[in-house]
């Protein structure tokens, strides 16, 4: 029973700097890092290695004392060069200087036909692939003790400048299927594979077996798994579902078939400030400097791991996030603009017609957006806008106000279990009053989660 869902609400931010569909030959990254801050809900990280230790791809690096079965492992073989801590000794990064030849920890191939669920879970948690599984509600790394009611996979990414998964995952069909077969053992319910209904479906997805293939179409956030869950099998209080990205499924598949933790993936190098935008094959946690340096067409830029809506600002020597499949480079926006709020313009992108009234003249214009905050924070004034970019039966403003008021009952009743940051990221973009929407969402989730 596959479903076809057509969504109307939402907004596509059409940015300049799309990645060309080709693999570029950037110099490979020298250093890699594991950032515990990538894993939301990781509470008390315990590091298992010291500076100077040699590790292989798949060697455990740290674990969470609150969820101690799940190992976070090295993406690449090499030497631990730095364990970087911030204020109050908060663990920030564990850096690895990569070997010339990557060598893998032998984790043992898995025969899915004979293995039982318990041993499979143990294999997955020890091998480092487990953090790919994200639990809904809350959007945290899944707890191996739970059995989810279903597993959801979004097979397309609608974020600005997002990579084309049909391109980045090509040739991985057999690993993808192996990963799906493993996932089937983890849930009693269905595995939902949600594809883009407006385009031809890449064979890696259309040929997948043992899953329910659903078609979604519409503007962003149609590709967000949270939105898809809402329309397929919404999460109520007390229920648990898991989500995983297709790249994560492939990583599990490689563990099953080859018995190794293989962190390699194809990511998109995007953004208006880059001379060359393309795809590159690298590994999770790679240092982005070789992709960015010497590839800039302006001086003052912001490098983002991920996309412009949900990503994280990193430095020119920063590291790709564990879950990210693109980097975006945009101009830094720390400038003053004379009467910037009043000038009529077609150069600025706005969802609102009060500013973007003339945008219909150039429907396919690609905009260059910078990181300017475009005004100051105010109380909520305009109404109806958040609803118009949120294709869910949720009232975002009321939910956000409930979070601000720390009203637990109200948050539950208004649907905090159904969302994570990325689902309301567009609200943060279009907000006239410039609220930190995603920060608020996480605050609300943490209030509920730890209450």
């Amino acid at each position: 029973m596959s479903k076809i869902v057509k969504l109307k609400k939402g907004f596509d931010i059409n940015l300049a700097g799309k990645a060309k569909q080709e693999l570029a030959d950037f110099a490979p990254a020298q250093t890699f890092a594991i950032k515990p801050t990538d894993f939301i809900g990781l509470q008390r990280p315990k590091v298992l290695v010291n500076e100077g230790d040699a590790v292989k791809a798949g060697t455990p690096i740290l674990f969470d004392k609150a969820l101690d079965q799940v190992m976070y492992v090295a993406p690449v073989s090499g030497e631990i060069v730095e364990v970087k801590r911030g204020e109050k000794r908060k663990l920030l990064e564990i850096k690895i200087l990569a070997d010339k030849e990557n060598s893998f920890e032998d984790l043992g191939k898995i025969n899915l036909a004979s293995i039982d669920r318990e041993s499979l879970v143990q294999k997955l948690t020890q091998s480092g692939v487990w953090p790919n599984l994200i639990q809904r509600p809350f959007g945290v790394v899944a707890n191996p003790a739970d059995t989810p009611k279903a597993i959801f996979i979004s097979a397309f990414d609608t974020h600005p400048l997002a990579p084309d998964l049909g391109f980045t995952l090509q040739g991985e069909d057999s690993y993808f299927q192996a990963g799906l077969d493993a996932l089937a053992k983890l849930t009693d319910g269905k595995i939902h594979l949600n594809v883009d209904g407006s385009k031809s479906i890449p064979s890696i997805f259309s040929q997948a077996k043992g899953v329910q293939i659903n078609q979604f179409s519409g503007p962003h956030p149609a590709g967000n798994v949270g939105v898809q869950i809402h329309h397929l099998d919404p999460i109520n209080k007390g229920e648990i579902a898991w989500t995983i990205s297709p790249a994560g499924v492939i990583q599990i598949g490689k563990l099953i078939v080859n018995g190794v933790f293989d962190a390699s993936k194809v990511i998109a190098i995007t953004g208006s400030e880059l001379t060359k935008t393309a795809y590159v094959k690298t590994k999770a946690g790679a240092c982005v400097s070789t992709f960015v340096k010497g590839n800039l067409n302006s001086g003052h830029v912001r490098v983002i791991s991920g996309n412009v809506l949900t990503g994280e600002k990193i430095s020119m020597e920063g590291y790709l996030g564990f879950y990210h499949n693109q980097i975006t480079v945009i101009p830094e926006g720390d400038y003053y603009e004379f009467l910037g709020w009043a000038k009529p313009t077609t150069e600025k992108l706005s969802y609102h017609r009060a500013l973007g009234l003339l945008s219909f003249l150039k429907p396919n214009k690609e905009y260059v957006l910078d990181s300017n905050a475009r005004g100051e924070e105010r109380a909520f004034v305009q109404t109806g806008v958040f609803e118009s970019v949120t294709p869910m039966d949720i009232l975002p403003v009321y939910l956000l106000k409930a979070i601000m008021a720390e009203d637990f009952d109200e948050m539950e009743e208004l649907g905090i279990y159904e969302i994570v940051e990325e689902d309301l990221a567009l609200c943060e973009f279009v907000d006239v009053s410039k609220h930190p929407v995603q920060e608020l969402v996480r605050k609300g989730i943490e209030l509920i989660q730890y209450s």
Partner: protein
Amino acid sequence: MKFLRDLMDKQKPLFEKGGKLESLYYAFEAGETFLFSPNHTTGIKGAQVKDAIDLKRMMITVVVAMIPCLLFGIYNVGHQSLLATGETAGLWENFGDKALIGLQLVLPIIIVAYAAGGLVEATFAVIRKHPINEGFLVTGMLIPLVVPASTPLWQVALATVFAVVIAKEVFGGTGMNILNVAMTARAFLYFAYPAQISGDQVWTYLGDKAAVDGFSGATALAVAYNAGVDGVPVTEALASHNTALGSDMFSFANMFMGWIPGSIGETSTLMALVGALILIGTGVASWKIIVSGFAGAYIMGFVMNLFAVNEYMAMPPQYHWVMGGLAFGIVFMATDPVSASQTETGKWIYGLLIGFLTVIIRVTNPAYPEGIMLAVLFMNVFAPLIDYYVVKANKTRRLQRATV
């Protein structure tokens, strides 16, 4: 603009923490952000780019939408004045004189409203340490448009101060208020100084000249109400009114155009609709409220027809659209996003009820010829209740999903 920026940067340390004028920081900040969009950038996590719109832009759009009403109002003030004293007959005769009279009367009101309100805003911003609210850009323009041109300036100032303090600042500023600020100002004047804002004498400015024989300064609403009392068909009463100034002053077409006595900006239904077009076109105001507001007035007018026990109730419902401030009130007051209903379903109900109430108040209550003012304020108070039930329906849907 470089020198302006340099000037700002030079003065800034004075107002920042530790500076001599630290307490005036928000006053300085308001000026600075007015001249220059700030150089703030987005945070480390979360949305890295932002939509180009901000509250300043949104509010100025509303002010732009009011300009047709304002310009028309200025001219109409002069036109009505010369018409009443018999110095002009045609619409476009004595154009310059009319515009001049209008400007002389209206400009001071606008200046006083902005000055008085702006002073209150700035004072509150400095004392309560919050940025100055852009919402006042709109309020300061709305208040002059809903008072007669003959209103004493001190009353304008007093009403503005009252409204900004009581209707807005005590709740915490723009976005927190319950009542529409400009409507509160008008209601204040209406109840505190009724002699200057109701009756037959205040709508037309005569200066020191005498009106022509047989002149009546009554508004269409008053004429219609009296027709109901006297048992004369309203359309006839309207047609035969003020024949001393020429025929058909209160014809449907003339009232739609707005060449009638009334408050400065509210007489012209046409100009209000132009404003509505701008507001809907830019997406600043909710078309749902505007459409349902007009629909509500028509429906209630029609229901009144069905149960007509007097001639006012039997008036063709479309006349309600063009008489008094209904159009202006629905387009500019009812759509205030803060005091209106905030859910999409709620907006339909809210607009519809404003239309209903306006006509009910007009037709049944002799003390308040203009129903829109009280209808909007009344529904402002009830908007949260409407929203409460719409939100509750959303919660119930979620709950039912869980239990089925």
